[in-house]
């Protein structure tokens, strides 16, 4: 059979469509398609053409959806409804791990199903391709999505009557199926022009009894879809938009939109590309059993961006800005495509009718730039003009690959108090095989968990040379960290990891190092310092500037002394925010230590910083003044890390996931957002 045969348009009347449904059933597919339910057209099981919404259409406008009776008997005379197909592929609730004894975690078998999606529109298929890229595009893949995605047939319908909130033509995703479908149907009054795009599609059409389509029908179908392109209810001018949004993060229009936004999350949950989720750990009343359930979540909820001590996006303005700039701007950098397919759901299903196309256009028409944003614009420009996604910072796969979602047991070897609220947890992986495989780079983190209590991201604070034995230095501030603090030697906890990027020790060889740490920020730098001390001659001058709240809060005092006292050691300077009369050292924030720095040979210095974001901002500002280049300044960022493998979206930071692309970033990769609040 030639490719031409596959593409030759066929004709399917209504009996033929039933034949298609029967053929799908005979091949073991569960067919989902449009049905009228609860005043809307939703996607549900379809086995017979009578179940399809014959003669039903819909009216859509911002915040409003109504079914309407059509004058004809078309089956697909509607556009996209309240549900996207994602609920069948990226399901609203999935159990991702469970344990019965609190020690051994296992992943439940991912559920697979042969699915045929009947009536899927071109924009919706484009959305699935986007979710494929997010959830299967690596370096990790979501096993649950992968399983559900394995055997899906797409029986598409080309749109001939776009809805009031549609703008697929602007987004170049429709109205005609061009990519990824098995069959594309175009409905005419008396039947369908059917085009197979795959061998499966061809076989199904043959089984359904499709006949060659009359030339007149093919012409009518083509004309109807062509005409649809010009009748979109909405349009979005894409040219340069990503850049305009990226350089307007302080535009007052965000505040105005926030005055109408309910932060209810409807837009994100109706969106076919939004992929964010949260993980809820449930436990039984008694006994050690627990399980982790992944649920759809949204960047509009408060818990999404919350960490202990505050919320990175406290205001509705921050959340709306995050959502829209991600969809239309930073998504390109992150995934190489737009995050919007123009289906219009976020407009229709917004209870107050906020229209993404209108808000984007308003910002385009009233741009606001300050000088820093001009610089950011240039930076953003470089990033956006690069073909495809820019190369992310180096990431490391976890050495425990099959443990990316499922914890492995680790035994507590010691719990040592460091300061009044900080302790070091020494762990040894329980299984010999895990010990064998586990290795990490300085700057990486693990997810530590206690069944029924929860999980949190903790950087590794021990030497990478010390295989199998791991230390984490932790501030006891939340329920998980407090529970970890109260553990006794011999207890078992769960561990996933290691995750994230690492300090640039390799590329820093032969150069001077300037290491700046604030508070517990010294913990993720300690493995780097161990590595430097073990290979001291590989580096030039090494300086550590460390600031703590009080002398009593200072971490690793013994290490600091050892490192500075060693022959060919490192220069250590410390300062505290406040101190009693017996403190003879320096008092002041860590940036006061910069005053004593000789104008460094900037070109040969690599800076590595970790601490509170505000401390890093002030420090970076001074380092830039000293002449360091943004690519030579490395910062370790903190966000709410939940899945640690780039699926849940909680740690989204501009175009990056902090868990996967960070936590260590060169400033050049994050400069655009580094100076902003509410990101």
């Amino acid at each position: 059979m030639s490719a031409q045969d596959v593409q030759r348009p066929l004709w399917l009347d209504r009996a033929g469509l039933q034949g298609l449904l029967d053929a799908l059933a005979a091949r073991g597919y569960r067919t989902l398609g449009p049905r009228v339910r609860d005043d809307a057209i939703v996607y549900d099981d379809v086995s017979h053409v009578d179940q399809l919404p014959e003669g039903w259409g819909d009216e859509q406008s911002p915040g409003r959806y109504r079914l309407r009776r059509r004058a004809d008997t078309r089956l697909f005379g509607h556009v996209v409804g309240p549900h996207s197909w994602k609920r069948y592929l990226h399901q609203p609730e999935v159990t991702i791990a469970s344990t019965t004894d609190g020690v051994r975690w296992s992943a439940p078998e991912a559920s697979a199903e042969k699915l045929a999606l009947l009536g899927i529109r071109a924009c919706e298929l484009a959305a699935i391709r986007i979710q494929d890229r997010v959830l299967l595009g690596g370096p990790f893949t979501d096993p649950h999505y992968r399983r559900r995605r394995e055997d899906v047939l797409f029986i598409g319908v080309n749109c001939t009557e776009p809805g009031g909130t549609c703008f697929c033509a602007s987004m170049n995703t429709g109205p005609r199926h061009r990519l990824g479908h098995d069959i594309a149907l175009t409905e005419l009054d008396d039947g369908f022009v059917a085009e197979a795009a795959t061998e499966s599609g061809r076989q199904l059409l043959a089984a359904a009894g499709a006949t060659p389509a009359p030339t007149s029908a093919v012409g009518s179908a083509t004309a109807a879809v062509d005409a649809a392109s010009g009748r979109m209810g909405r349009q979005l001018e894409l040219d340069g938009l990503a850049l305009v949004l990226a350089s307007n993060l302080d535009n007052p229009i965000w505040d105005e939109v926030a005055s109408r936004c309910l932060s209810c999350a409807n837009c994100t949950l109706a969106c076919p590309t939004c992929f964010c989720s949260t993980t809820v750990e449930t436990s039984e009343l008694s006994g050690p059993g627990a399980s982790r359930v992944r649920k759809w979540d949204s960047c509009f909820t408060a818990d999404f961006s919350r960490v202990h001590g505050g919320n990175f996006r406290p205001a509705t303005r921050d959340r709306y800005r995050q959502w829209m700039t991600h969809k239309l701007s930073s998504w390109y950098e992150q995934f190489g495509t737009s995050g919007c397919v123009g289906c219009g759901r976020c407009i229709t299903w917004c209870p107050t009718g906020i229209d993404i196309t209108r808000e984007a256009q308003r910002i385009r028409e009233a741009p606001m730039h300050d000088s820093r944003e001009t610089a950011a614009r240039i930076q953003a420009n470089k990033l956006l003009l690069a073909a495809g996604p820019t190369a992310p910072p180096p990431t490391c796969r976890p050495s425990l690959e099959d443990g990316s979602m499922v914890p492995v047991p680790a035994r507590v070897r010691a719990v040592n108090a460091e300061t009044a609220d900080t302790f070091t947890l020494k762990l040894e992986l329980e299984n010999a095989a895990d010990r064998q495989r586990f290795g990490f780079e300085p700057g990486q983190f693990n997810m530590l968990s206690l069944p029924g209590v929860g999980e949190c991201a903790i950087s590794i604070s021990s030497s990478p040379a010390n295989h199998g034995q791991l230390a984490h230095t932790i501030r006891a501030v939340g329920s998980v960290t407090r529970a970890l603090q109260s553990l006794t030697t011999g207890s078992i906890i769960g561990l996933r990891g290691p995750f994230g990027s690492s300090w640039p020790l390799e590329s820093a060889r032969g150069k001077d190092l300037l290491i700046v740490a604030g508070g517990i920020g010294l913990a993720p730098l300690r493995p780097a310092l161990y590595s430097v001390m073990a290979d001291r001659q590989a580096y030039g001058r090494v300086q550590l500037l460390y600031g703590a709240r009080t002398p009593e809060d200072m971490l690793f005092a013994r290490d600091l002394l050892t490192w500075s006292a060693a022959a060919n050691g490192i220069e250590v300077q410390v300062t505290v925010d406040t101190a009693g009369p017996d403190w003879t050292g320096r008092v002041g924030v860590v940036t006061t230590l910069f005053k004593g720095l000789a104008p460094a040979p900037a070109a040969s210095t690599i800076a590595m910083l970790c601490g509170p974001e505000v401390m890093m901002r002030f420090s970076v500002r001074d380092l830039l003044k000293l002449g360091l280049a943004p690519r030579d300044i490395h910062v370790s960022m903190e966000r709410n890390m939940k899945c640690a493998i780039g699926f849940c979206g909680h740690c989204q930071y501009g175009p990056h996931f902090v868990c996967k692309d960070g936590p260590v970033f060169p400033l050049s990769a994050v400069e655009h957002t580094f100076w902003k609040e509410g990101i």
Partner: protein
Amino acid sequence: MTRPRLGVFKFASCDGCQLTLLDCEDELLAIDAAVDIAYFPEARRLALQGQFDVSIVEGSVSAPAQLQELLDIRKRSRFLVSIGACATAGGIQALRNLADSDEFVRAVYAAPEYIRTLATSTPIAAHVPVDFQLRGCPISKTHLLELIVSLLRGRRPQLPDESVCVECKRRGIVCVMVARGEPCLGPITHGGCGALCPDFRRACYGCFGPKESCNTPAIAARLRAQGRSGEQVAQLFEKFNVGSRPFKDEAARQRGDRS
């Protein structure tokens, strides 16, 4: 290991929330094995005595004697949880806060001289420090179980502060506001009910109270644009959580603007 002592207390309320504990039929034996239910007049005849690890308090403060009683409970309790719209916002009876309660007493009771009541119905947290709140009218059984489990495990209860819409969307319920024009408060209401009303094609009437970032002016503007008067919109907010600040203020704004 001794079981934590649990007390269940009631102020002005219908008892529905505390009965949620008895509604935990399948889990009741496990709860009883895990905690010592030391005071629970609805379920067992035990005198009030001693200290409590956890006190679950239902109802609002609406009578003078209740104030003393509440202070006593607080002193006896390590951890105090207020449950339900009455205890967390004053309940439906907080409507009296907007009117003359003496007038109500005279109109309702044959012998008003026997009635000792306060002019207002107020939440527990208005009088004593509260460690945790469970919202709802009534509360959700799932929330109550999560509260008990989390207390036993020594962690923070996982009760996300998200809108009812999130629950609708996860369940695949079609939005009644957008598809039917129902006056739904779901978008600004704390989730937890599992989208009970929208599942029956009814508007959410806000029984779990305001969620965080509760933008009442924006939803009120939308409800007005759908053709409702200021009075009609005000009444939507004046229900079980009328005592909560965002709802009370929005009702007042809508009343002030009767156009």
